[in-house]
C-alpha cells in the first residue's frame, strides 16, 4: 500500500519574494486596521461620555455660578461655556479640545482637569498595579494547586479564601487591616501616600511615588511610600486574587479532563509537568482576559479603599466630581477610565496572538 503525499495547510505563494511582500503588506494592513479600531472605539467612547454628560439633569452653568446668581450672569456664563450652540457643534469642539489635551477647568479644584488627572491617575495606577501583581502571583498558583488536588483539604481552603474575597466588604477589610497592621503591629504606615515630612521631597516625574523616589535616588522616600502602599495594594490584591484563583481553578479542572492531558500521562510525563506544561499552557489565553478585566476594574479606582486609606486616586476624584456636578472633571475621568479599558483590551488581543497559535 502506498501512502499519498501528505500536505498540511498550504502556505501562500511559492516565490519567497512574493510571499514576503504579501506578509509585509498584510502586516501594514493589520496595523492600520488595529489603529483604526482603536480610533473608532475611542470616538465612540467620547460620544457616549459627551452625550451622557449633556442629558443628565445637572446644569453645568449652575455648578459654576451657583444657584443665587442673577439671570444675566447665568446667560453670560452659558454663552461663554458654549452651551448655547447646537449639540453637534459642541461635540465637535469637545473632540477637538480633548485631542489637544484640553479637558477644561475643574470647578471644584479650580485647576485644568488634565492636571488633576495627571496627579490622581498615577496614584491609582501605582496601587492597582501592585494589587494585580499580588493577585496574579498568588491567585494563579492557588487556582492551579486547587484544581490539581480537587476536593482535598488544600482545595477547600483555597475555595474558602476565594469566597471570603467575594463576600467581605472592602471598607471593612481596609479598616481591620489598618487596625491590625498599622495601629497594633505597626508593620505598615497609615493612610495617605507618604508621610507628611517626606512630602514634596522628590520631584514629580511620572507621578508614581515608587518610581519617582527611585529616579531621585532617595531610598528613604521609597521605603516610606512602600509602607504606605503595601496594605491597600494587598487588600486590592486579595480581591482580585479571589476572582483569579476561582477562574484559574475552573479553567484548570476543564483542562485536566482533556484527552491531551491523558496523552501526556501516557507518555510518562511527571505530574508536575502534566499540570504546568500541558494543562496550564492552554489556559493562559482565557486567564489573560480574566486578569485584564480585574486590572481594568482596579484601575477604575476602588472608591472604598481610596476613602479608607485617604488615597488621592481617580476613584475619589471621580466621586467628588460627581457629587459637585463638576462635569468637566467627570468627563475627563470617565475618558481616562475608558481609555484604560480600550488599552487593556487591545493589549490582551495582542497577547492572545502571541500565546495561542490558533489565533494567529
Amino acid at each position, binding site marked *: 500500500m502506498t501512502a499519498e503525499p501528505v500536505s498540511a495547510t498550504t502556505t501562500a505563494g511559492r516565490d519567497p519574494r512574493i510571499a514576503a511582500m504579501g506578509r509585509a503588506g498584510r502586516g501594514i494592513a493589520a496595523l492600520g486596521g488595529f489603529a483604526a479600531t482603536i480610533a473608532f472605539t475611542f470616538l465612540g467612547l467620547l460620544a457616549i461620555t459627551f452625550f451622557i454628560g449633556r442629558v443628565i439633569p445637572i446644569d453645568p452653568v449652575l455648578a459654576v455660578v451657583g444657584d443665587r446668581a442673577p439671570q444675566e450672569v447665568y446667560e453670560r456664563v452659558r454663552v461663554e461655556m458654549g452651551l448655547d450652540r447646537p449639540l453637534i457643534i459642541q461635540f465637535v469642539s469637545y473632540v477637538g479640545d480633548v485631542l489637544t489635551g484640553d479637558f477644561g477647568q475643574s470647578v471644584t479644584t479650580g485647576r485644568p482637569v488634565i492636571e488633576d488627572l495627571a496627579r490622581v491617575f498615577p496614584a491609582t495606577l501605582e496601587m492597582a498595579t501592585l494589587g494585580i501583581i499580588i493577585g496574579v502571583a498568588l491567585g494563579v498558583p492557588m487556582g492551579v494547586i486547587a484544581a490539581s488536588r480537587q476536593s482535598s483539604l488544600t482545595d477547600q481552603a483555597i475555595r474558602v479564601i476565594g469566597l471570603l474575597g467575594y463576600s467581605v466588604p472592602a471598607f471593612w477589610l481596609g479598616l481591620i487591616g489598618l487596625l491590625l497592621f498599622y495601629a497594633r503591629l505597626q508593620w505598615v504606615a497609615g493612610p495617605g501616600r507618604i508621610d507628611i515630612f517626606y512630602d514634596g521631597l522628590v520631584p514629580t516625574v511620572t507621578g508614581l511615588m515608587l518610581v519617582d523616589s527611585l529616579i531621585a535616588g532617595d531610598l528613604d522616600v521609597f521605603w516610606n511610600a512602600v509602607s504606605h502602599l503595601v496594605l491597600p495594594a494587598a487588600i486590592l490584591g486579595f480581591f482580585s486574587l479571589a476572582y483569579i484563583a476561582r477562574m484559574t481553578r475552573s479553567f484548570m479542572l476543564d483542562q485536566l479532563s482533556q484527552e491531551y492531558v491523558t*496523552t501526556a500521562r501516557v507518555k510518562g510525563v511527571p505530574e508536575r509537568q502534566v499540570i504546568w506544561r500541558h494543562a496550564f499552557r492552554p489556559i493562559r489565553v482565557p486567564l489573560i482576559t480574566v486578569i485584564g478585566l480585574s486590572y481594568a476594574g482596579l484601575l477604575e479606582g476602588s472608591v472604598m479603599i481610596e476613602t479608607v486609606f485617604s488615597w488621592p486616586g481617580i476613584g475619589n476624584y471621580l466621586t467628588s466630581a460627581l457629587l459637585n456636578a463638576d462635569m468637566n472633571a467627570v468627563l475627563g475621568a470617565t475618558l481616562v477610565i475608558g481609555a484604560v479599558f480600550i488599552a487593556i483590551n487591545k493589549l490582551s488581543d495582542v497577547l492572545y496572538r502571541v500565546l495561542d*497559535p490558533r489565533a494567529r
Partner: protein
Amino acid sequence: MSDLLDVKKLRVTFPTASGPVDVVKDISFSLGRERLGIVGESGSGKTMTGRSILRLIRPPGKVTAERMDFEGTELLAISEPAMRKVRGARISMVMQDPKFSLNPVMTVGEQIGEALAVHEKLPRRRVKQRVLEMLEAVQIREPERVFGLYPHEVSGGMGQRVMIAMMLIPEPSILIADEPTSALDVSVQGEVLSIMNDLVTRKGMGLIFISHDLHLVSAFCDRILVMYRGEIVEECRADALHAATHPYTRGLLASVPRLGETRAELPVLDRSAWETA
C-alpha cells in the same frame, strides 16, 4: 510463546449513587508479540481494560487484579514513579481522535520530542533528529516542516500519524491502540493502519487493538477477544471468527450487511437469547 503481558481477573470498579458498578468483571487474557483485537460495543469495558493496563483510571475508579504481569513486573504493585517509567517507554497508547489528544498549543515536534526526552537524556539536536526520523517512519513527507506545525494545522490522518510517531518513538514493547482509526475518514483509515502494522511487526511489539469494528479487527489482528458488559464472551483466532460460538458474537456477525446480498430484513441483535433476566 513468551507472554509480554499476563492479566488475570482484572476488575475495574466505579462507585455510583446506587452502589459500586463493575465495568470490567474479572477478565483474564495474555498478550504475546502478536496483534490482539478487543471488540465490543460502547460501554463493554474495552477502553477501561486498555487504560487500566497503564493505570490511567483516576480515582474514584478502582482497579484490582489477581495478576497483571508485564515482563516480570507486577504493574499494580509498583510505585507511581516506577509506573511513569513504564508508561510511554515500555507500554504506550494511541488514542482515538488526534483533534483532542494532541495538545493544541505545542508544536508537533515539541510533543513528539517530549515523549522521547522524558525517558532518555539526550541532547536537543539528537532529539530533533530522532523525531524527524520518526516522522519519516510514519510516512510524513517534509518532516522538517511538519515538525514546526501546530496540531490544528494538520489533517486528521496526519494527526494520527503524529500520534503514532509520538507513542512509538521511545520504542515500547506493547502498544495499545484505542479506536485509532474511528475518527478518521475511511480513505485514510487503511493508510494509518498499515503504517502502524508495519512498525509494530517490524519491531516485534505486542499490539492491543481496541475497536468496535468487528470486520476491521478480524482482518487486522491475529487473535480476538469479544467483550460484552465487562466480560470476555468469546476468544478466538481472527481467521476462526466465523466459527464463533457465543450467541452475542453470532448475533453481531449475522447483523453485518454484505455487499451484493439480498436479505429482506437485516437481523437485529436479540439480547434475550443469552441474557438471563
